[in-house]
């Protein structure tokens, strides 16, 4: 039973870890990865806590997470396309602000 909470806490950890990386990492690919990790964290929390309804697992969060995974891949595809477009016009795949901090 407490393992469910352990997974949920790992989910929280992934969420905040992703948030930290999203904020501090300059490269867009890293930011995209960070968002995916955040998403995984949320999903993990959702599904893990759904296991508290023994004997039968609550599947509604599972259905929600499947929905969420599809959204995530759609968003990732869009983000990667945008990133490639951006790096065509300005190499480095970083947002302008982050670049100017460099110079």
């Amino acid at each position, binding site marked *: 039973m407490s393992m469910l909470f352990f997974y949920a806490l790992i989910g929280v950890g992934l969420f905040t870890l992703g948030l930290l990386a999203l904020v501090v990492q300059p490269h867009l690919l890293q930011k995209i990865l960070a968002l995916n990790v955040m998403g995984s964290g949320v999903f993990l929390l*959702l599904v893990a806590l759904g296991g508290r309804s023994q004997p039968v697992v609550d599947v509604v969060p599972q259905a*929600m997470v499947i929905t969420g995974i599809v*959204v995530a891949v759609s968003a990732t595809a869009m983000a990667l396309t945008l990133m490639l477009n951006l790096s065509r016009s*300005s190499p480095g795949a970083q*947002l302008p602000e982050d670049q100017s901090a460099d110079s």
Partner: protein
Amino acid sequence: MGAQLIQVDWAVVLIMLPLSAAMLGFLLPGMARNIGLLAALLILFTVVGLGWQLTQTGVYSHVAGGWLAPLGIQLHADGFSLLMLATSAIVGVAVSIYSTGYFKAADDQRFWPTWLLLWAALNALFLAADVFNLYVTLELLGLSAVTLASLTGSKDSVSAAMRYLLSTLLGSLAFLLGIGLLYHQYGSVDIAILSERVNDSTVSWAALGLITAGLALKTALFPFHFWLPPAHASAPAPVSALLSALVVKASFYILLRLWLGLFDFQQDSTVANMLGILGATAVLWGSIQALRQIRLKMLVAYSTVAQIGYLFLAFPLAQTGGNRVWYAVAYLMLSHALAKAAMFLVAGNMMLFGGHDRIVNLDRVVQRLPVTVAAFGLAGVSIMGLPPSGGFIAKWLLLEAALAQGHWGIAGIMMLGGILAAAYVFKVLGYAFIPSPVPHQAVSVPARMQWMALLLATLAIMAGFVAQPLMQLIGIGALFDSTGSMP
């Protein structure tokens, strides 16, 4: 006939219609424009139908799939939904017509299906009564908005769209985590059920924080506004109009609904006051930044940051003085949507006309595009909150609430914001009258693009004269008539 029409599920049609049109447009790219225009008109018609239905029968609700909450999903339409749906329909139709002049035929297949999906997302969002359903509509909305924002393909617009995408995804994830926590504590994602169950608990507070932060990010509340000005300024003009007028309002709409439905367990005003302070900062910061801009679209975009601030000023007022102040906010959402859409359309006209949007080089545009400048002026009146306009009515109501409760700070911020707004609006108008040091050839702007801007601006003014009937409409379902949590 009437009896049958009143049975029609207008609300469901409002979701299915743009979705179907988007698919048709996707299948038949060559006809996307005509399909879209037809759909736009039908949506307007359907909203009228829904409005009539609501005035006759009161609040509308629909049980999707025939499964009652908490198992299934319900749709819900009251006066506030109606207001937002109608605003979207009006702005949507005007922008649709405008875009036929703005986009070349080759761009049609990139614009129309996405825009129709965005419209579907908006309608679905305003009708949702289920927080997870809201999450899905939010994602559909955010992703389609980002796509539209990147349409020009310029370097600026791509980087702005990227930033927008990251922000909107982050906001959605925070929202999702919040509703996940709520679900696991209270066992439902239906707003009505949740609102009965939610109490003052740790999880409620965590959800309150996550959801509020996520939605504030999507609404571009200061200091989360960083993504908005570049995204709105570098998008194509009709898209900027949609983003500023409707998309940021949608996330605020959710915030307000949840605030009234779920988060009324708060016994003190800490969070409300914090939102109010951020709103006040947004008003000042956005206005000052707008004043400092040299490009028209950036100016208009920063003006949106400021105007969003006004929406948040109402949180502390509602906390101490009751929910009636939300009427003012609803009114502000309407009039800002109309006026700001008009302003972005104007900016699009001016860019088309002069090939740039530097304010000091507008070069007697008042004589060459009188209709466009008139639209800017009228929209500006509403943005400044001067009478007679929808913006004035909203500002009057807010100010009245602030003064009646002795919220001097808020009242002062509102006055200051109005003055700054006047400064940036008239900065543009002043340069519209004088010749530019480097005069340029005027490119002709299609008449429909000019008249659509004027139409929206005129409606923003007219909104100042129909406050009473409009508020009756908004009041269907009495969402704002309950007293606040603190008597």
